């Protein structure tokens, strides 16, 4: 056998080249592995920075009450931090508008970047609410009440204290007596406009006198709306109907309401509601009457309520057939009770009150348990349990 000269040299070089290639591949693999480990480290650090961004965001939000107005919700602009960068934004996941409703949840999103690694975390914060203090009582009249005199009128309040305003001590007959006459929280007067925005406008009545608009036999419910003068009215699915008084008196005489009647632009004018056969809230438990005018209620005696004076008889309020005013009434003006009014609910007036004849009120605690919109106050913000999210970077 003949071995060609130089053959062993070629063989050794070939084996060496292969060995060297394998070695280089192995070394490259080691370097790549190290880069992967480094990237994983960067990702962990980026996650720590993203969480830190949220921590910094809430601290800044607590220090600067204008955070809802920050451009783009940017609470933490991109800031170098610990070899990377942090930033945080806040947004309103419900309607993308942070300024329109303080009671909506907000989402805080934190970003952390280290090298090419970026991590994003978000958490939802929501305000806790509680019923306004005014829902604790049967009737609250901020400007105090007159005419509550046993000699001339009978005013009975059952279940919870009566609250007048400004320290006015009244000779009112209160069962479960009042312990504190100090003022309590009322809703904002803007609540009238808030409910008006939810409702369907009732056209001006064709029946007018020198004082304003008269509605006779007004029938309002979520499925039907009519009056003696306006036989066909648009219906509102929530039973929220709005009358624009235009600065004039509005008089509603007779009929029934299942829902909410809102009378706006009545400041300084009268809103007279007389002799309704029944008035009760819709299923959502909204108030039954809201107005910015001076409200007069007349002749809405419940046939189920016995003449209680002087005894503590209030059973008639619990009768399913109770046909007085069932629900909550609010006016940002004055309130006057004329000629036999029975209320199972809550009466709130920001102005003064007067009782001209018999008034009987029994507190309805259901409004406390489940306050309608505008009748609760925000307390503290709280993290929503389970709302932490890790999302991919954009």
């Amino acid at each position: 056998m003949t071995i060609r000269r130089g053959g062993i040299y070629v063989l050794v070089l070939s084996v060496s080249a292969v060995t060297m290639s394998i070695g280089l591949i192995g070394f490259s693999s080691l370097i790549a592995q190290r880069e992967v480990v480094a990237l994983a480290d960067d990702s962990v650090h980026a996650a720590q920075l993203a969480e830190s961004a949220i921590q910094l965001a809430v601290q800044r939000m607590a220090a600067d009450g204008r955070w809802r107005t920050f451009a783009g919700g940017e609470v933490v602009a991109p800031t170098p931090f610990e070899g990377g960068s942090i930033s945080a934004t806040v947004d309103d996941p419900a309607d993308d508008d942070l300024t329109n409703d303080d009671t909506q949840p907000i989402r805080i999103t934190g970003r952390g970047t280290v090298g090419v690694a970026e991590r994003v975390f978000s958490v939802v914060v929501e305000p806790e609410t509680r019923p306004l203090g005014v829902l604790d009582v049967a009737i609250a009249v901020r400007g105090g009440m007159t005419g509550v005199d046993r000699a001339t009128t009978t005013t009975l309040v059952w279940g919870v204290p009566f609250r007048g305003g400004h320290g006015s001590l009244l000779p009112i007959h209160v069962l479960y007596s009042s312990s504190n006459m100090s003022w309590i929280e009322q809703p904002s007067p803007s609540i009238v406009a808030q409910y008006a925005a939810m409702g369907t406008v009732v056209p001006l009545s064709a029946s007018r006198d020198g004082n304003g608009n008269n509605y006779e036999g007004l029938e309002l419910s979520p499925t039907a709306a009519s009056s003696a003068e306006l036989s066909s009215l648009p219906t509102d699915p929530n039973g929220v109907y709005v009358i624009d008084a235009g600065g004039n008196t509005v008089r509603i005489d007779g009929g029934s309401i299942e829902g909410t009647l809102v009378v706006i632009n009545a400041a300084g004018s009268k809103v007279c509601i007389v002799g309704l056969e029944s008035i009760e809230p819709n299923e959502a438990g909204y108030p039954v009457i809201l107005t910015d005018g001076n409200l007069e209620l007349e002749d809405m005696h419940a046939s189920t309520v016995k003449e209680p004076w002087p005894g503590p008889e209030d059973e008639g309020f619990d009768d399913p057939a109770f046909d007085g005013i069932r629900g909550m009434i609010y006016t940002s003006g004055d309130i006057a009770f004329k000629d036999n009014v029975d209320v199972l609910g809550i009466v709130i007036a920001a102005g003064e009150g007067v009782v001209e004849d018999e008034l009987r009120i029994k507190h309805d605690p259901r409004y406390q348990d489940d306050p309608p919109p505008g009748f609760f106050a925000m307390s503290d913000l709280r993290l929503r349990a389970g709302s932490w999210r890790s999302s991919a970077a954009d």
Partner: protein
Amino acid sequence: MIEVVLATATVGVLSVAALSVAAGAARERSSAVSSLVAESLVHDMVEEIANKPVGEAPSAPALPIGGLFGGLLGTSTSGTQTGTTADGLTAGRLAFSTVRGYDGWTATPPVENDGTPIAGAEGLTRAVRVTEVSITDPGGPEASGSGLLRVEVTVSRGARTIARGTILRSDVFDELNQ
């Protein structure tokens, strides 16, 4: 004959190179393992601290354990652990109830929160520094009264820092989380 000489020389050079690469790889592996251990130690401590409430700022200067009580309480059988706040005196880190309580904590070698030495961490030191910082400059110097804490965790071998992690903790966040 010349081919044999050249082939032998080539094999020799390549062998040296291969051994060098192998040694480098071994060093790299050792470094990577050490780095992974260190990163893990940092991560664990950061997670532990992140789950604690910020706590109230101390009303009086903290008492260094290593000074007055160092001989009695600052040394474990496996190494040295020191802290600077009173709530760490009783049972190592288990007694740290707040983030602030971790300030100044060091352990050589690193230990679990009940004081058990961590396997594979021999020769390492894990240290924590907590600084109250400004909300406008969280990476900056101390700014007491802000309620925002910067927590820095380092793992080092001798004087060389191998891994570090930093987080921010907010007392407002704790209130939101109640």
